[in-house]
Structures are given as structure tokens and as C-alpha cells.
């Protein structure tokens, strides 16, 4: 019998226009174990379809470090979706 994958809770942050589209700055979400950042984004894109058009012009971070979309998430991780940066 396959082992039951445990669900994990992650914190999710939105910035810039993503914050405006989602209408929230942060969220807390339960995911199946082994979920990656891509699947987390897919979840929010299904909830807020306008996010989808920005997928190719976003980067993600995990625990305050830039992270590839296939990064596997762990309980307590803080994930952020980051539009192109424009400081200075």
C-alpha cells in the first residue's frame, strides 16, 4: 500500500500587480506533500484566472531566496510570487 502523503501548510505572498489581481497580500494554504511551486501557482491561477497571463513574467521565491518553479515545498515554507523588480 502506498504511503499516504501528508498535507503541508505554506505561507504565500503576493506583490505588485499580483497583489491587486488576487486582492490579497498573503495567504495560508494546505497542499499535498510533494507539491511544487508550479502547482501552487496553478492553484491560485484557477482561483484568480487573471494571474495566468503573468506566469511567464514572474519569478518565485522560497524562504526569501529566488527558487525554480519545480522546487518541492515543505511545511512552513514561505513562497512569494514576484513580478519584474523595479526598485531604484
Amino acid at each position: 500500500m502506498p504511503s499516504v502523503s501528508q498535507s503541508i501548510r505554506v505561507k504565500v505572498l503576493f506583490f505588485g500587480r499580483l497583489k491587486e489581481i488576487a486582492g490579497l497580500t498573503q495567504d495560508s494554504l494546505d497542499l499535498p506533500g510533494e507539491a511544487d511551486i508550479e502547482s501552487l501557482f496553478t492553484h491560485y491561477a484557477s482561483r484568480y484566472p487573471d494571474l495566468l497571463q503573468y506566469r511567464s513574467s514572474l519569478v518565485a521565491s522560497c524562504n526569501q531566496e529566488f527558487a525554480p518553479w519545480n522546487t518541492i515545498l515543505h511545511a512552513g515554507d514561505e513562497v512569494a510570487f514576484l513580478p519584474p523588480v523595479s526598485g531604484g
Partner: protein
Amino acid sequence: MAASSTDITLLVHKPIDRDTLGAYVRGDGDGAIVIFDGFVRDHSKNRRTLYLEYEAYEHMALAKIQEIAAHLHIQFPIHRVAMVHRLGRLEIGETSVYIAVSAAHRAAAFDACRYAIDTLKRTVPIWKKEYFEDGSVWADGELPTVPSAPSATSTVKPAS
């Protein structure tokens, strides 16, 4: 990578105290200070700007600014660094970012200051919204480069 303990790295929500920062990096062993003072322009792409609003992923942005400052000491023979970015609403002419680098010789101070502002603009999670008479837009930005493998598990070591 921690910044040198004598550097100043800050995100602030009030006007940047430029004089204090400039004086802070100045030492008797230095012969030059190069300062980058970035401030709010009154136009953007032929539209008149009213004001700007900056927001940041503050925890990560400060860590990235500290990484840049630390890197300057490795790459350039410099003395001290002050790197400060302001957040919130800024009016025309107000300083949004201020970087001061001191060094014994000018070349290192110029090179380090240029590297610092260029890297900040490419990698630090800060966003600028421009307000015009007829609306507002998020400024075009740069997409940071992301390592291709998850950083936590990808400590690659040379074979030998």
C-alpha cells in the same frame, strides 16, 4: 553572506538622510567617495509623473541589499558601504535610493557603486508604481535570474 559590520543597509519609510550616510562612509584612509543618488523624475515616457509609490518584500529585499554590500567588499578594494532604499509614497525630487561607497582610490569606489545600483535594480524585490494625472501603472521592471536547481539542495562541488 553578511554585510561588513561597519556597512549601513536599510529600508526606510521616511526621507533618506543623505548627509549622514555620506559622512558615515568617510574614513581617514580613504581618498574617494562615490555616491549614487537616485530620485523621482517628473516624467516617464512623455507623461507627467505626479508621484511614485514603492513597495518591497521587505525581509527578502533587505537580505538582498546586504548580500550586494557584502559582495562589494569581496570584489572591490573598498572601505565602507551605505545602501538605503526608501519605500512608500515619494514626491518629485525625493531620493528613493542612496548608495555611498568609500575607498582609498576612486576607481574601486566608482566600480563598486555602479555594480551596487545595477545589481539592486536587477535583483532586489522592490516595485515602483507610477501615478499620472490619468491613472497609474506598475513600472516596467527586470526579471531576476533564478538558479535552475533548488538552492537548498544544490550545493555543487567541483569533482577534484
